């Protein structure tokens, strides 16, 4: 397969884009990544044409056919290139995986960003909400190494890119995930040992810098 057959439209700090790239890397699929230079200004023609409804990244173009919405793209990657599988083989376990992926998608990013977007008393409230979500996820993880068992897979891929945003919230919220949720912190460390993850994830310090600028622009102290 030539590199040009698989193209991703990306933005450097988007955890949703990282899900797609980790998925492709896990499958050993060669791809070209194209950065949207001005995502919040003038979006590229290719992006507007490929995702006219949402006009968002990530977009995956496979042999020119566009796909959008990161979880849908990740499922596509898993089904199009079945080996190694990202989801368990048993129907119930697969459904549980989809449930937790959906939970993470609905709750985790909002919860962590809620902290650095807040000021004053609202920070503590946001922190509490975030830690509650992590505790639920720790429950789902149980004693397993990864969300679906011994192997890194779909749910881990959905969650791990969001964790690069934790550092900013830890600093502005004055707390540490390692102290509050050690099991979750251990899971993060395990995921970071995978080449696909360490290769794709943006440095959390860069996210911290970005968040600082965003807070200034929104007048948050």
């Amino acid at each position: 397969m030539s590199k040009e057959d698989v193209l991703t439209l990306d933005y450097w700090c988007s955890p949703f884009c990282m899900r797609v790239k980790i998925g492709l890397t896990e499958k050993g699929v060669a791809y070209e990544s194209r950065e949207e230079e001005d995502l919040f200004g003038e979006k590229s023609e290719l992006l507007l044409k490929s995702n006219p409804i949402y006009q968002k990244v990530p977009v995956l173009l496979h042999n020119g056919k566009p796909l959008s919405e990161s979880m849908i793209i990740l499922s596509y990657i898993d089904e199009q290139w079945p080996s190694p599988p990202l989801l368990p083989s048993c129907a119930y376990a697969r459904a549980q995986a989809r449930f937790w992926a959906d939970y993470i998608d609905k709750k985790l990013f909002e919860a962590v960003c809620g902290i650095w977007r807040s000021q004053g008393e609202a920070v503590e409230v946001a922190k509490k909400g975030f830690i509650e979500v992590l505790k639920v996820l720790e429950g789902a993880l149980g004693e397993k190494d990864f969300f679906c068992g011994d192997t890194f897979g779909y749910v881990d891929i959905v969650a791990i890119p969001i964790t690069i945003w934790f550092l900013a919230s830890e600093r502005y919220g004055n707390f540490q995930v390692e102290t509050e949720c050690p099991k979750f912190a251990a899971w993060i460390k395990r995921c970071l040992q995978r080449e696909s993850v360490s290769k794709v994830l943006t440095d959390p310090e860069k996210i911290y810098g970005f968040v600082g600028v965003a807070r200034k622009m929104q007048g948050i102290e």
Partner: protein
Amino acid sequence: MAGKGVTLLGYWGSPYTLRVRWALKLKGVDYEYVEEDLPNKSALLLKYNPAHKKIPVLVHEGKPLAESLVIIEYIDEVWKNNPLLSQDPYGRAEARFWAKFADEKCGPAIMRTFVAKEDEKENVAREARENLKILESYLAEKPFFGGETIGFVDIVAGWIGIWARIVEEIVDANLMDAGNTPLLNAWFDNFLELPAIKECVPPIDQLLEHNKSFHKSLTATST
């Protein structure tokens, strides 16, 4: 077809419960239905869905599942007759995309119309009509979203035809405009007339009364 211990915890007035019932009906799965007395959630519901504490919950061979879209995909995988999703990965991705669009853009817009203050109502209704128009573009000239037969998106989005009309009547708004979305309107009518689909829908007059009270309670605190 025996479902080997299938139970559905649901609420009669919930569109999310309804679409799971549609999926089970289409697959010919026998199941026990347990009505939840919302808002007095049962201990069983809280045990089976501690993360969200919501219906519907499907229990199959003692194992619980929540989130209607997750449940519907599970049903499709376990009972392989009358498939809802195609085998082709791109076709599946497309169906999932449009199911998500219906759920995230059309449904909430209809809900916003339901609770809108009088001066905002037309704007939110217009947004809902625009989103329904976009949904219609995926239907195009097909009889159903699934093609010649109903599929995943039909099951997921079918409730909109019922609830949009209820909202129209209660708040006097225009959502299912035949001029705006003629194909979608025709699809809703055809879909809702299918025996397997019609059989599961609660009596419309009961749904109307229920939502009228619901509307009263939602708008009672707004000035």
